[in-house]
Every structure is written in structure tokens, then in C-alpha cells.
């Protein structure tokens, strides 16, 4: 099978975004860059949730990705965005491969708490490392793209384009994965691991691969956030960051791979306007809108989109 409807929709949306890119206001471009790079992380969280696993520690891979890129840029002098991406993703994937051996034994809240523990240990190490600027973190030099080194606004939109391409392609890839044998085994694990084993498939392997995939996505998100913000600090690995990812994932809904993209955009917008119009109570605004979604849209925001699709269809 080449491309099904969803993949084509996403592809179209990607092209639309790239075309629209240059005409978007600069502030929005940046917000979208951050939102989409976080969407990559949330996409990973969603993949895990599809198997009934919730990671309160994706900040670990988010942070590793960002710091991996940051250190490569500042210490090895690597400037190429694609190379940095590769490094960041590789770093987080490797760590995940190791951690997953342990994690795959756990479910439910224990999976959540253990992943949280790992991320917080990493956070602690970062805070203690004065060489890396402790909690102040450090700045990244502007990246170049296969030799082309744009500056200022052009550089920003380049990062935006890169992020958009990756986010949408990742979504398409995730969609394909979810329809694959292993992906469907993931779905199966959610409701009945024993039967999966009794059909002759390894639940452990399925989960480990899922963890690594999610970590790779989180790593990519970390690198892109670092490139966009040109600054990284341990906050990226703090548990509240991880909590936010889980939160947005549920908010968006796990039914469809496009949900995280939309969810993250909305979340960032809600938050930035909440900060502007309710500077003293923006947390409350965010929290309240979350609660509303959880209680009245159990399927997440995606269920709205689905309703519309139904009506149009």
C-alpha cells in the first residue's frame, strides 16, 4: 500500500503549511515551531498510550536530544542542523534502548513513575553540572542547513520549515507504524497481553521498540526546540515538562496521528494568550480549559474534528 487517505491529508497539510509559512507573522512562525517540535514528543507519548503505557519522563529524551545537539554544537563545533538532529535522535534512542530493558517490565503507574525517576535523575545531574551552566543552561549558535547558513528571520523560517517537515513526516510514519503488525500488537497489548504472548509474539519486544520510537521522536523534538529557542536548560527534563506532554497528548486525543499536531498548536496559543490577557491567572485558564476537554470531550479535541469529518462525509 502506498499512501492512504490520512497520509495524503497530512502530506497536503504539510505542503499547505510550507506554502503558508513565509506569509505567517514572525511571532506565529516561532510559536508554531515550538508547538510542532513539542508535537513530535507528544506524538511519541501518544504511541506509548496506544499500548496503555504513560511515560511521565519523556522530558529525559527531550532533554537528551536538546543537550546532545547543544553540546555537539558548542564543543564539537557542529553547525549542520541535519547532523545535529541525527546526533540528538541517536543519543536519546540509545539511552532509551538501555532504559527500555528495565522499563518494559513495568506497566501502569509503575511505568510512569520509573520513567519519571530516570528523567529526574538526569535533571539532577544537569543541575549539578556547573560546566553546562547548571539551571541557567547555555545558548546555541545559529545552525546551518547543508552548507546554507541563513541568518535572522530567514534562519527562523528555515528551522520552522524543517520542524514542519519532520513533524508531518513523523505523523505519517507513526500512522504507518500503527497500522503495521507491530503497531497493531501494541493496540492488542493495551487490552490483553497474555493473549499476545499466547499468539506467539513478544510483548517485551513490542514495548521496547515503542519506547525507543517514542524516545527518538522526543529527541528530535528536543533538538528542534533547542534550534528554535537557541537556548537549552535543565527545565527541558523537569517532570512538569514531561507532565505537560502527557497532558497535551490526552487533550489532543490519541485516536489519530494528526491530533498531537493540532493539540500542541492550540495548547501553545491558549497559553500565550492566557499569559497576555490573564497574566495573573493563566494557569487557571489553561487548567480550566483542560478540565473542560477531559470532562466533555473524552476523546480529546480530535473528537471535534472527527464530528466535523462525519458531518461532511
Amino acid at each position, binding site marked *: 500500500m502506498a499512501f492512504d487517505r490520512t497520509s495524503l491529508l497530512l502530506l497536503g497539510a504539510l505542503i499547505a503549511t510550507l506554502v503558508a509559512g513565509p506569509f505567517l507573522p514572525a511571532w506565529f512562525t516561532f510559536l508554531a515551531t515550538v508547538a510542532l517540535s513539542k508535537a513530535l514528543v507528544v506524538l511519541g507519548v501518544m504511541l506509548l*498510550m496506544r499500548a496503555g503505557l*504513560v511515560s511521565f519522563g519523556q522530558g529525559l529524551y527531550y532533554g537528551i536530544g536538546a543537550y546532545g545537539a547543544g553540546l555537539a554544537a558548542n564543543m564539537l563545533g557542529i553547525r549542520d542542523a541535519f547532523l545535529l538532529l541525527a546526533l540528538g535522535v541517536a543519543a536519546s534512542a540509545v539511552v532509551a534502548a538501555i532504559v527500555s530493558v*528495565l522499563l518494559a*517490565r*513495568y506497566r*501502569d*503507574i*509503575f511505568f510512569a*513513575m*520509573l520513567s*519519571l*525517576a*530516570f528523567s*529526574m*535523575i538526569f*535533571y*539532577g*545531574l544537569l*543541575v*549539578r553540572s556547573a560546566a553546562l551552566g547548571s539551571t541557567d543552561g547555555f545558548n546555541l549558535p545559529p545552525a546551518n542547513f547543508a552548507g546554507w547558513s541563513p541568518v535572522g528571520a530567514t534562519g527562523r523560517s528555515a528551522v520552522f520549515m524543517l520542524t514542519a517537515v519532520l513533524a508531518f513526516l513523523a505523523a505519517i510514519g507513526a500512522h504507518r507504524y500503527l497500522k503495521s503488525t507491530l503497531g497493531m500488537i501494541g493496540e492488542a497489548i493495551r487490552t490483553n497481553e*497474555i493473549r499476545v504472548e499466547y499468539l506467539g509474539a513478544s510483548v517485551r519486544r513490542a514495548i521496547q521498540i515503542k519506547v525507543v520510537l517514542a524516545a527518538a521522536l522526543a529527541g528530535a523534538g528536543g533538538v528542534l526546540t533547542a534550534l528554535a529557542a537557541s537556548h537549552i536548560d535543565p527545565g527541558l527534563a523537569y*517532570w*512538569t515538562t514531561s*507532565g505537560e506532554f*502527557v*497532558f497535551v497528548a*490526552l487533550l489532543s486525543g490519541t485516536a489519530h496521528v494528526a491530533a498531537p499536531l493540532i493539540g500542541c498548536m492550540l495548547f501553545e496559543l491558549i497559553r500565550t494568550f492566557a499569559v497576555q490577557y490573564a497574566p*495573573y*491567572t*493563566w*494557569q*487557571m485558564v*489553561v*487548567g*480550566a480549559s*483542560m*478540565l473542560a476537554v*477531559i*470532562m466533555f470531550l*473524552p476523546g480529546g479535541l480530535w473528537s471535534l474534528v472527527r464530528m466535523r469529518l462525519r458531518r461532511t462525509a
Partner: protein
Amino acid sequence: MQQLIAILVDGTVYFSWLFIVSLGLTLIYGVMNILNIAHGSLFALGAYMAAWVIGAWFAGGLPPAASFLAFAVAGVAVGAVLGLVIERGVLTRMYGSDPIVIILATYAVFLILEDVITLVWGLDPYLAYQPYALLGRVQLAGISFSIYDLGLVVTALVLAAASWYALNRTRQGKLLLVVIHDREVSAAMGINVRLKFTMTFMIGAALGALGGALSAPGISVVPGVGVDIIVLAFAVTVVGGLGSIPGALVGALIVGLCRAAAVHLMPEAELFVIYSVMALVLAVRPQGLFGRAIARKI
């Protein structure tokens, strides 16, 4: 020698505090299988309430000795009321849905409460030092310890004993144990599980707020005071085994002593000692020290 004593005393003090803070969380989880993130804001709420009561109390020149009762009661009261509101207002609509969704709902409640608290009490730190200063200090091996802190140890042990008695020696408590053991069966046996849930959540919330209230005199009550409590309490309960009160006791003891040792022997490790302990325990014993491993019936 002196250092060893210091480690033991500090560890015990920290243990008591951890236990008080985690008790409500583990109770709610044990009965309702809900990991209540709003526990953090309940702690904060209790702390603010207590700080406020203490301030008013001493400003009003009321008998200092009675202030202890006053702020403890205030904390418990506000916790119980808010617990009722949260359980009735939010959680009742969500029972049966994915536990993670419920956790997230409590997270949303947490976010809201954080701002509610600052709206009510403002952003300035609250000082409620009087009870802490009132009790003075004792000398142990050349180190002076606050009697209030040592009082926490007594409080923690009393709470532990009380909860043990309530669960194992009272009718309601035994019924609760039945609910903990098997919700379906107990419902079938005609136990009003819904009511039990409401009660449990109120008690758990009250305990969370009490934790905050008891901490208030020792700390300065500031916005976000509850944020780290969540992870801390989670860590302790997970180490001990979620939903197990003896577990919370042991978990708190282990974490407490490890942290005290770290502070005295290698301060730079303080930041991650708790999580390391948690990771280690889970690695060795996946369901925590006192957790029940559940196998699926096929």
C-alpha cells in the same frame, strides 16, 4: 558520632514529614486507584490556611498553646471540604474512565487551585513561625533540634497507629479493606462503594491538607509550595508500594534516612537521592516493597 546522631534524628524527622505528606495520597490510591495530583495543592491549601489562622490567632492575642489545635483543625477542615468538592464536582463524572484520564483531571484541578490560592492569599510568603518558635529546642550531642520537628515524629506515629486501628479494628475500616481488596465483589456484597469513595477522598484530602498545615510553621508558605510535594509523595508511596499504608511508612523511613545521610555526607547528591532510591527499589521489586502483584485470571 555526633554526625551519626544528627543523621538519625534528621532522618527520622524527615521520615515523619514524608509519611504525613504521603499518607493521604496512598490511602486514596489504595481505595480508588486514583493518583491524586491535586494532593500537592491540597498540601499548599492546608499550609496557607494554617499560616493564615496562626497569623490571626496570635494577632488576636489568643492563648498560644491552643493555636496548635486551631491550625491543625483549620487544615483538616479545608482539606475535607475541598476534597468533597473535587470528588463530587469532578471525579464522580469520571469513574470508570481510563485511570490516566483521571490523573490528568486531578492535574487540571491542581493547575486551577494553584491560581485560586494566589488569588486568595496573594504572592507574598506567609510566615507562621510562632508555634515553631514557641516550643524552643533541645540539645542532642551538641546539636540543637527543634522540639516542633521532634513533635512531627510523634504526630506521624500517632497518625500511623490511628490509621492502622481505623482500618483493622473499626467496622467502617474493615469494609474499606474489603473495597480495597475487590471493588466488584464488595459492591456485589452491598457495600456502598460510591459513599466509601467520597469518604476516602475527603479523608485523603484532609490528610494532605493536614500535612501542609503541620509544615506551615516550619517553612515559609509561598506560591508553588505544593508542586514538589506531589513527586515526593509519589516517590515515597511507590517505594513502599502504592496503596499500602505500612508501605508508605517504610518508604518514608528509607527515603528519609537516605536523604539525611546524603545531606550530611555528600550534599551534592541531595537532589537525586530520592529518585535513585525509587529507581533502585522498583528495579529490584517492581510493585514496591509492600505492593501486591496482581496476576490475570485466565
